[in-house]
Protein backbone atom coordinates (compact mmCIF):
# COMPACT_ATOMS: atom_id res chain seq x y z
CA UNK A 1 0.00 0.00 0.00
CA UNK A 2 1.43 3.33 -1.04
CA UNK A 3 1.19 5.74 1.86
CA UNK A 4 0.76 8.81 -0.34
CA UNK A 5 -2.75 10.10 -0.97
CA UNK A 6 -2.78 10.83 -4.71
CA UNK A 7 -6.53 11.29 -5.02
CA UNK A 8 -8.69 12.40 -2.10
CA UNK A 9 -12.48 12.20 -1.95
CA UNK A 10 -12.75 15.78 -0.58
CA UNK A 11 -9.62 17.67 -1.55
CA UNK A 12 -9.13 16.01 -4.92
CA UNK A 13 -6.01 15.06 -6.79
CA UNK A 14 -2.54 16.09 -5.70
CA UNK A 15 -1.89 19.07 -7.96
CA UNK A 16 0.75 21.09 -6.12
CA UNK A 17 3.04 20.80 -9.12
CA UNK A 18 5.94 20.17 -6.73
CA UNK A 19 8.96 18.63 -8.44
CA UNK A 20 9.85 15.10 -7.35
CA UNK A 21 13.52 14.83 -6.47
CA UNK A 22 15.77 12.33 -4.79
CA UNK A 23 17.00 12.55 -1.21
CA UNK A 24 19.30 10.11 0.53
CA UNK A 25 18.09 8.50 3.74
CA UNK A 26 20.60 6.37 5.66
CA UNK A 27 22.50 5.87 2.42
CA UNK A 28 19.50 4.91 0.28
CA UNK A 29 17.83 7.17 -2.27
CA UNK A 30 14.09 7.84 -1.90
CA UNK A 31 11.79 10.10 -3.91
CA UNK A 32 10.53 13.29 -2.25
CA UNK A 33 8.62 16.39 -3.30
CA UNK A 34 10.36 19.73 -3.11
CA UNK A 35 8.82 21.78 -0.29
CA UNK A 36 7.05 18.98 1.54
CA UNK A 37 8.31 18.23 5.06
CA UNK A 38 11.12 15.66 5.05
CA UNK A 39 8.99 13.58 7.43
CA UNK A 40 6.22 13.27 4.83
CA UNK A 41 8.63 11.81 2.29
CA UNK A 42 9.81 9.30 4.90
CA UNK A 43 6.27 8.30 5.88
CA UNK A 44 5.45 7.83 2.21
CA UNK A 45 8.12 5.11 2.17
CA UNK A 46 6.89 3.72 5.49
CA UNK A 47 10.01 4.92 7.32
CA UNK A 48 8.71 5.85 10.78
CA UNK A 49 11.78 5.89 13.04
CA UNK A 50 13.61 9.21 13.03
CA UNK A 51 15.91 8.93 16.01
CA UNK A 52 16.95 6.88 19.05
CA UNK A 53 17.01 8.38 22.54
CA UNK A 54 20.20 9.22 24.44
CA UNK A 55 19.92 7.00 27.53
CA UNK A 56 17.69 4.07 26.71
CA UNK A 57 18.27 4.10 22.95
CA UNK A 58 14.55 3.85 22.28
CA UNK A 59 13.11 4.69 18.87
CA UNK A 60 11.09 7.85 18.32
CA UNK A 61 8.98 9.06 15.42
CA UNK A 62 6.25 11.50 14.43
CA UNK A 63 4.35 12.71 17.50
CA UNK A 64 3.13 16.32 17.16
CA UNK A 65 3.76 17.02 13.47
CA UNK A 66 4.06 20.78 14.02
CA UNK A 67 7.63 21.29 15.24
CA UNK A 68 6.91 21.33 18.97
CA UNK A 69 7.95 17.97 20.41
CA UNK A 70 11.27 17.28 18.55
CA UNK A 71 10.66 13.52 18.42
CA UNK A 72 11.20 13.55 14.64
CA UNK A 73 14.66 15.15 14.83
CA UNK A 74 17.25 13.72 12.41
CA UNK A 75 20.63 14.63 10.97
CA UNK A 76 20.07 16.63 7.79
CA UNK A 77 23.01 17.62 5.59
CA UNK A 78 25.26 16.99 8.58
CA UNK A 79 23.26 19.13 11.01
CA UNK A 80 21.85 17.27 14.02
CA UNK A 81 18.50 17.89 15.75
CA UNK A 82 16.67 19.05 12.64
CA UNK A 83 12.89 18.77 13.07
CA UNK A 84 11.90 16.87 9.95
CA UNK A 85 8.17 17.60 10.30
CA UNK A 86 8.73 21.31 9.60
CA UNK A 87 11.80 21.23 7.39
CA UNK A 88 11.03 21.37 3.68
CA UNK A 89 12.65 18.95 1.25
CA UNK A 90 15.37 20.27 -1.03
CA UNK A 91 16.95 18.37 -3.90
CA UNK A 92 19.82 16.11 -2.88
CA UNK A 93 19.32 16.35 0.88
CA UNK A 94 21.23 13.80 2.94
CA UNK A 95 19.16 12.58 5.88
CA UNK A 96 20.36 10.20 8.60
CA UNK A 97 18.71 8.55 11.58
CA UNK A 98 19.95 10.31 14.70
CA UNK A 99 21.41 8.40 17.63
CA UNK A 100 21.39 10.28 20.93
CA UNK A 101 22.12 13.95 20.47
CA UNK A 102 23.76 13.27 17.14
CA UNK A 103 27.17 14.57 18.12
CA UNK A 104 30.61 13.40 17.00
CA UNK A 105 30.18 9.94 15.49
CA UNK A 106 26.38 10.35 15.72
CA UNK A 107 26.12 9.10 19.31
Amino acid sequence: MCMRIEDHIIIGKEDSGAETVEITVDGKPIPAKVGEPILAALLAKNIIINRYTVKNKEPRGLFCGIGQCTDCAMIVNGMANVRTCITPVEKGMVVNTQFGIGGEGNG
Partner: protein
Amino acid sequence: MVERDIVVVGAGPAGLAAAIEAAKLGAKSVLVVDLNMKAGGQLFKQIHKFFGSSAHGSGVRGIDIGAQMLADAQKYGVEIWLNSAAVGIYGGKVVSIEKNTENKTPVLTNVVAKKIVIAVGASENVIRFKGWTKPGVMGAGAAQTMINVNRVRPGKRIVMLGSGNVGLIVSYQLMQAGCEVVALVEALPGVGGYGVHASKIKRAGVPIYTKHTIIEAKGGDRVEAVVIAEIDKNFAPIAGTEKTLEADTITLAAGLKPISDLVRLSEAELVFDGVLGGWIPKHDRNMETTASGIYVAGDATGVEEANTALEEGKLAGVAAAESLGLVSESEAGKLKGEIWYRLDGLRMGPFGEKRMKAKAAQIASFPGVGA
Protein backbone atom coordinates in the same frame (compact mmCIF):
# COMPACT_ATOMS: atom_id res chain seq x y z
CA MET B 1 14.29 49.72 14.89
CA VAL B 2 11.33 47.92 13.37
CA GLU B 3 7.97 49.46 14.28
CA ARG B 4 4.43 48.32 13.58
CA ASP B 5 0.98 49.54 14.63
CA ILE B 6 -0.07 46.02 15.55
CA VAL B 7 1.85 42.78 15.93
CA VAL B 8 -0.27 39.64 15.94
CA VAL B 9 1.30 36.40 17.10
CA GLY B 10 -0.26 33.40 15.38
CA ALA B 11 -1.68 33.23 11.85
CA GLY B 12 -4.59 30.92 12.62
CA PRO B 13 -8.25 31.97 12.40
CA ALA B 14 -8.04 34.21 15.50
CA GLY B 15 -4.81 35.98 14.55
CA LEU B 16 -5.72 36.46 10.90
CA ALA B 17 -9.18 37.75 11.84
CA ALA B 18 -7.67 40.25 14.29
CA ALA B 19 -5.17 41.46 11.69
CA ILE B 20 -7.71 41.74 8.88
CA GLU B 21 -10.23 43.56 11.06
CA ALA B 22 -7.68 46.08 12.33
CA ALA B 23 -6.30 46.66 8.83
CA LYS B 24 -9.83 47.13 7.47
CA LEU B 25 -10.40 49.84 10.08
CA GLY B 26 -7.29 51.67 9.02
CA ALA B 27 -4.33 50.24 10.96
CA LYS B 28 -1.41 51.09 8.68
CA SER B 29 1.12 48.42 9.51
CA VAL B 30 -0.18 45.11 10.75
CA LEU B 31 2.33 42.29 11.10
CA VAL B 32 1.37 38.67 11.74
CA VAL B 33 4.09 36.24 12.78
CA ASP B 34 3.71 32.47 12.73
CA LEU B 35 6.19 29.69 13.35
CA ASN B 36 4.74 27.42 10.69
CA MET B 37 5.62 27.10 7.01
CA LYS B 38 2.11 28.16 6.01
CA ALA B 39 -0.42 30.61 7.42
CA GLY B 40 -3.94 29.54 8.33
CA GLY B 41 -3.32 27.57 11.50
CA GLN B 42 -5.51 24.52 11.74
CA LEU B 43 -7.95 25.75 9.07
CA PHE B 44 -6.10 23.96 6.26
CA LYS B 45 -6.44 20.68 8.15
CA GLN B 46 -10.19 21.12 8.51
CA ILE B 47 -11.53 19.66 5.31
CA HIS B 48 -15.00 19.25 6.83
CA LYS B 49 -17.88 21.72 6.65
CA PHE B 50 -18.45 23.96 9.64
CA PHE B 51 -21.63 24.08 11.74
CA GLY B 52 -23.66 27.06 12.84
CA SER B 53 -25.75 29.58 10.92
CA SER B 54 -24.72 31.18 7.65
CA ALA B 55 -23.35 34.15 9.64
CA HIS B 56 -20.82 31.71 11.09
CA GLY B 57 -19.77 30.28 7.76
CA SER B 58 -21.69 27.05 8.23
CA GLY B 59 -21.55 24.64 5.34
CA VAL B 60 -18.16 26.01 4.34
CA ARG B 61 -15.07 23.85 4.72
CA GLY B 62 -12.25 25.06 6.96
CA ILE B 63 -9.82 24.98 4.04
CA ASP B 64 -12.03 27.37 2.08
CA ILE B 65 -12.39 29.73 5.05
CA GLY B 66 -8.58 29.68 5.33
CA ALA B 67 -8.13 30.51 1.65
CA GLN B 68 -10.59 33.41 1.95
CA MET B 69 -8.80 34.77 5.03
CA LEU B 70 -5.42 34.66 3.29
CA ALA B 71 -6.93 36.52 0.33
CA ASP B 72 -8.43 39.13 2.69
CA ALA B 73 -5.13 39.51 4.55
CA GLN B 74 -3.43 40.24 1.25
CA LYS B 75 -6.20 42.58 0.12
CA TYR B 76 -5.91 44.71 3.26
CA GLY B 77 -2.12 44.79 3.23
CA VAL B 78 -1.47 42.54 6.22
CA GLU B 79 2.17 41.51 6.40
CA ILE B 80 2.87 37.88 7.35
CA TRP B 81 6.20 36.48 8.52
CA LEU B 82 6.28 32.68 8.39
CA ASN B 83 8.83 30.37 10.02
CA SER B 84 9.01 33.04 12.69
CA ALA B 85 8.65 32.43 16.42
CA ALA B 86 7.73 35.15 18.91
CA VAL B 87 10.11 34.33 21.76
CA GLY B 88 9.43 37.20 24.14
CA ILE B 89 7.47 40.34 24.89
CA TYR B 90 9.25 43.13 26.74
CA GLY B 91 7.83 46.20 28.43
CA GLY B 92 4.42 45.41 27.04
CA LYS B 93 5.37 46.58 23.55
CA VAL B 94 8.52 44.96 22.15
CA VAL B 95 8.01 41.58 20.52
CA SER B 96 11.18 39.53 19.98
CA ILE B 97 10.85 37.45 16.87
CA GLU B 98 13.17 34.70 15.71
CA LYS B 99 12.97 34.37 11.95
CA ASN B 100 14.13 31.40 9.86
CA THR B 101 13.09 28.81 12.40
CA GLU B 102 13.05 26.16 9.67
CA ASN B 103 16.51 25.10 10.79
CA LYS B 104 18.27 27.80 8.80
CA THR B 105 20.35 30.52 10.44
CA PRO B 106 17.97 32.16 12.90
CA VAL B 107 17.78 35.95 12.98
CA LEU B 108 16.39 37.79 16.00
CA THR B 109 14.35 40.90 15.28
CA ASN B 110 12.80 43.16 17.90
CA VAL B 111 9.60 44.81 16.74
CA VAL B 112 8.12 47.73 18.65
CA ALA B 113 4.34 47.42 18.52
CA LYS B 114 1.69 49.91 19.58
CA LYS B 115 -0.68 47.01 20.18
CA ILE B 116 -0.06 43.27 20.47
CA VAL B 117 -2.49 40.42 19.86
CA ILE B 118 -1.55 36.98 21.18
CA ALA B 119 -3.40 34.28 19.25
CA VAL B 120 -1.11 31.30 19.66
CA GLY B 121 -3.75 28.60 19.92
CA ALA B 122 -3.66 25.39 21.91
CA SER B 123 -1.59 22.21 22.07
CA GLU B 124 -2.73 18.60 22.27
CA ASN B 125 -2.99 16.81 25.58
CA VAL B 126 -1.21 13.51 25.95
CA ILE B 127 -2.40 10.31 27.61
CA ARG B 128 0.37 8.00 28.74
CA PHE B 129 0.28 4.21 28.81
CA LYS B 130 2.88 1.49 28.48
CA GLY B 131 4.58 1.90 25.11
CA TRP B 132 3.21 5.41 24.46
CA THR B 133 6.57 6.66 23.16
CA LYS B 134 6.81 4.06 20.38
CA PRO B 135 6.80 5.29 16.81
CA GLY B 136 3.19 4.95 15.65
CA VAL B 137 1.72 6.71 18.70
CA MET B 138 0.92 10.33 17.86
CA GLY B 139 -1.45 13.20 18.43
CA ALA B 140 -4.68 13.12 16.45
CA GLY B 141 -3.67 16.56 15.17
CA ALA B 142 -0.38 15.14 13.91
CA ALA B 143 -2.25 12.46 11.96
CA GLN B 144 -4.65 15.09 10.61
CA THR B 145 -1.73 17.27 9.49
CA MET B 146 -0.20 14.34 7.64
CA ILE B 147 -3.33 13.27 5.76
CA ASN B 148 -4.94 16.62 4.99
CA VAL B 149 -1.93 18.88 4.51
CA ASN B 150 0.98 16.62 3.61
CA ARG B 151 -1.19 14.02 1.87
CA VAL B 152 0.52 11.04 3.38
CA ARG B 153 -0.92 8.36 5.66
CA PRO B 154 0.77 8.01 9.05
CA GLY B 155 -0.25 4.33 9.26
CA LYS B 156 -2.66 1.76 7.92
CA ARG B 157 -4.68 0.55 10.90
CA ILE B 158 -5.56 3.18 13.47
CA VAL B 159 -6.89 3.11 17.03
CA MET B 160 -8.20 6.50 18.12
CA LEU B 161 -8.16 7.38 21.81
CA GLY B 162 -10.89 9.89 22.60
CA SER B 163 -14.33 10.49 21.13
CA GLY B 164 -14.65 14.24 21.45
CA ASN B 165 -15.14 16.17 18.23
CA VAL B 166 -11.44 15.98 17.36
CA GLY B 167 -11.40 12.20 17.85
CA LEU B 168 -14.56 11.71 15.83
CA ILE B 169 -13.73 14.09 12.98
CA VAL B 170 -10.13 12.97 12.59
CA SER B 171 -11.26 9.31 12.62
CA TYR B 172 -13.62 10.04 9.78
CA GLN B 173 -10.94 11.98 7.91
CA LEU B 174 -8.50 9.09 8.35
CA MET B 175 -11.09 6.88 6.65
CA GLN B 176 -11.50 9.43 3.86
CA ALA B 177 -7.72 9.28 3.46
CA GLY B 178 -7.86 5.54 2.98
CA CYS B 179 -6.75 4.37 6.42
CA GLU B 180 -8.62 1.72 8.34
CA VAL B 181 -9.88 2.93 11.70
CA VAL B 182 -10.04 -0.16 13.91
CA ALA B 183 -11.78 1.38 16.91
CA LEU B 184 -12.33 4.48 19.02
CA VAL B 185 -11.66 4.20 22.73
CA GLU B 186 -13.40 6.54 25.18
CA ALA B 187 -12.91 6.63 28.96
CA LEU B 188 -16.27 8.25 29.70
CA PRO B 189 -19.58 6.34 29.63
CA GLY B 190 -20.75 8.24 26.54
CA VAL B 191 -19.39 9.64 23.30
CA GLY B 192 -17.83 13.06 23.91
CA GLY B 193 -18.52 14.87 20.64
CA TYR B 194 -21.56 15.70 18.54
CA GLY B 195 -23.95 12.88 17.66
CA VAL B 196 -23.82 13.77 13.97
CA HIS B 197 -20.09 12.98 13.87
CA ALA B 198 -20.43 9.84 15.99
CA SER B 199 -23.18 8.60 13.66
CA LYS B 200 -20.84 8.76 10.68
CA ILE B 201 -18.28 6.65 12.54
CA LYS B 202 -20.90 4.10 13.55
CA ARG B 203 -22.38 3.97 10.04
CA ALA B 204 -18.93 3.06 8.80
CA GLY B 205 -19.03 0.08 11.16
CA VAL B 206 -16.28 1.29 13.48
CA PRO B 207 -16.83 0.32 17.12
CA ILE B 208 -16.63 3.01 19.82
CA TYR B 209 -15.55 1.40 23.10
CA THR B 210 -16.88 3.67 25.85
CA LYS B 211 -15.70 3.13 29.48
CA HIS B 212 -12.44 1.80 27.99
CA THR B 213 -8.87 2.97 27.84
CA ILE B 214 -5.62 1.91 26.22
CA ILE B 215 -3.33 0.11 28.62
CA GLU B 216 -0.48 -0.83 26.29
CA ALA B 217 0.99 -0.24 22.85
CA LYS B 218 2.70 -3.53 21.99
CA GLY B 219 5.45 -4.09 19.48
CA GLY B 220 9.18 -3.81 18.96
CA ASP B 221 10.38 -0.63 17.28
CA ARG B 222 6.86 0.34 16.25
CA VAL B 223 3.27 -0.22 17.30
CA GLU B 224 2.02 -3.66 16.30
CA ALA B 225 -0.96 -4.15 18.59
CA VAL B 226 -3.00 -2.18 21.10
CA VAL B 227 -4.31 -3.58 24.37
CA ILE B 228 -7.48 -1.92 25.62
CA ALA B 229 -9.47 -2.64 28.78
CA GLU B 230 -12.70 -1.64 30.42
CA ILE B 231 -12.35 0.82 33.29
CA ASP B 232 -14.33 1.25 36.50
CA LYS B 233 -15.86 4.50 37.72
CA ASN B 234 -12.49 5.56 39.11
CA PHE B 235 -10.96 5.06 35.66
CA ALA B 236 -8.97 2.01 36.84
CA PRO B 237 -8.69 -0.88 34.35
CA ILE B 238 -10.78 -3.92 35.26
CA ALA B 239 -8.67 -7.10 35.21
CA GLY B 240 -9.84 -9.73 32.76
CA THR B 241 -11.49 -7.27 30.36
CA GLU B 242 -8.42 -6.77 28.15
CA LYS B 243 -8.78 -6.98 24.38
CA THR B 244 -5.95 -6.87 21.88
CA LEU B 245 -6.54 -4.93 18.65
CA GLU B 246 -4.23 -5.31 15.69
CA ALA B 247 -3.10 -1.83 14.67
CA ASP B 248 0.06 0.02 13.66
CA THR B 249 -0.98 3.49 14.80
CA ILE B 250 -2.53 5.07 17.89
CA THR B 251 -3.84 8.62 17.65
CA LEU B 252 -4.48 10.58 20.84
CA ALA B 253 -7.45 12.95 20.98
CA ALA B 254 -7.56 13.73 24.68
CA GLY B 255 -8.38 17.40 24.43
CA LEU B 256 -6.32 20.52 24.05
CA LYS B 257 -4.85 23.08 26.37
CA PRO B 258 -4.31 26.79 25.72
CA ILE B 259 -0.69 27.73 25.03
CA SER B 260 0.25 30.23 27.74
CA ASP B 261 4.05 30.69 27.44
CA LEU B 262 3.99 33.99 25.60
CA VAL B 263 1.25 35.40 27.83
CA ARG B 264 3.42 34.58 30.86
CA LEU B 265 6.36 36.39 29.26
CA SER B 266 4.16 39.41 28.58
CA GLU B 267 3.35 39.64 32.31
CA ALA B 268 -0.39 39.55 31.68
CA GLU B 269 -2.18 37.70 34.47
CA LEU B 270 -3.42 34.14 34.00
CA VAL B 271 -6.17 32.20 35.70
CA PHE B 272 -6.87 28.45 35.74
CA ASP B 273 -10.13 27.30 34.20
CA GLY B 274 -10.81 23.59 33.77
CA VAL B 275 -13.75 24.07 31.40
CA LEU B 276 -11.64 26.21 29.08
CA GLY B 277 -8.74 23.75 29.12
CA GLY B 278 -6.17 25.14 31.53
CA TRP B 279 -4.35 28.39 32.23
CA ILE B 280 -5.86 31.27 30.30
CA PRO B 281 -5.07 34.97 30.20
CA LYS B 282 -7.56 37.12 32.09
CA HIS B 283 -9.29 39.35 29.58
CA ASP B 284 -12.20 41.78 29.31
CA ARG B 285 -14.94 42.07 26.67
CA ASN B 286 -12.43 43.76 24.36
CA MET B 287 -10.12 40.71 24.67
CA GLU B 288 -7.58 42.98 26.35
CA THR B 289 -5.46 41.41 29.09
CA THR B 290 -4.36 42.93 32.39
CA ALA B 291 -1.29 44.16 30.47
CA SER B 292 -2.59 47.29 28.74
CA GLY B 293 -2.37 47.12 24.94
CA ILE B 294 -1.96 43.35 24.86
CA TYR B 295 -4.94 41.46 23.50
CA VAL B 296 -5.69 37.75 23.24
CA ALA B 297 -7.98 35.70 21.01
CA GLY B 298 -8.86 32.15 20.07
CA ASP B 299 -7.92 28.87 21.71
CA ALA B 300 -5.17 30.57 23.71
CA THR B 301 -7.98 32.15 25.76
CA GLY B 302 -9.81 28.86 26.27
CA VAL B 303 -10.26 25.91 23.94
CA GLU B 304 -13.28 26.28 21.68
CA GLU B 305 -13.68 26.06 17.93
CA ALA B 306 -12.37 27.76 14.81
CA ASN B 307 -15.44 29.93 14.36
CA THR B 308 -15.35 31.26 17.95
CA ALA B 309 -11.62 31.88 17.51
CA LEU B 310 -12.38 33.88 14.40
CA GLU B 311 -14.97 36.04 16.17
CA GLU B 312 -12.68 36.63 19.16
CA GLY B 313 -9.96 37.68 16.74
CA LYS B 314 -12.31 40.20 15.15
CA LEU B 315 -13.13 41.57 18.61
CA ALA B 316 -9.46 42.02 19.41
CA GLY B 317 -8.89 43.64 16.01
CA VAL B 318 -11.73 46.14 16.45
CA ALA B 319 -10.72 46.93 20.04
CA ALA B 320 -7.07 47.45 19.08
CA ALA B 321 -8.08 49.74 16.21
CA GLU B 322 -10.38 51.65 18.55
CA SER B 323 -7.66 52.21 21.11
CA LEU B 324 -5.36 53.43 18.32
CA GLY B 325 -8.01 56.06 17.61
CA LEU B 326 -8.78 54.68 14.16
CA VAL B 327 -12.47 54.19 14.79
CA SER B 328 -14.94 56.10 16.94
CA GLU B 329 -16.23 54.66 20.18
CA SER B 330 -19.76 54.43 18.82
CA GLU B 331 -18.72 52.73 15.59
CA ALA B 332 -16.47 50.30 17.48
CA GLY B 333 -19.28 49.65 19.96
CA LYS B 334 -21.64 48.75 17.12
CA LEU B 335 -19.10 46.38 15.54
CA LYS B 336 -18.28 44.72 18.85
CA GLY B 337 -21.98 44.33 19.62
CA GLU B 338 -22.48 42.44 16.36
CA ILE B 339 -19.50 40.20 17.07
CA TRP B 340 -20.71 39.43 20.60
CA TYR B 341 -24.15 38.58 19.21
CA ARG B 342 -22.54 36.01 16.89
CA LEU B 343 -20.27 34.69 19.66
CA ASP B 344 -23.23 34.18 21.98
CA GLY B 345 -24.98 32.34 19.17
CA LEU B 346 -22.00 30.02 18.74
CA ARG B 347 -21.83 29.31 22.45
CA MET B 348 -25.23 27.65 22.64
CA GLY B 349 -26.12 24.02 23.06
CA PRO B 350 -24.83 21.57 25.66
CA PHE B 351 -21.15 22.07 24.75
CA GLY B 352 -21.16 25.77 24.02
CA GLU B 353 -23.18 26.83 27.02
CA LYS B 354 -20.67 25.52 29.56
CA ARG B 355 -17.98 27.50 27.78
CA MET B 356 -20.21 30.58 27.54
CA LYS B 357 -20.70 30.49 31.33
CA ALA B 358 -16.97 29.94 31.94
CA LYS B 359 -16.10 32.84 29.63
CA ALA B 360 -18.68 35.12 31.22
CA ALA B 361 -17.45 34.27 34.73
CA GLN B 362 -13.88 34.89 33.67
CA ILE B 363 -14.71 38.28 32.15
CA ALA B 364 -16.81 39.25 35.19
CA SER B 365 -13.77 38.58 37.39
CA PHE B 366 -11.58 40.89 35.29
CA PRO B 367 -10.22 43.78 37.38
CA GLY B 368 -12.63 46.67 37.10
CA VAL B 369 -15.35 44.66 35.34
CA GLY B 370 -16.90 42.68 38.16
CA ALA B 371 -19.06 43.93 40.99
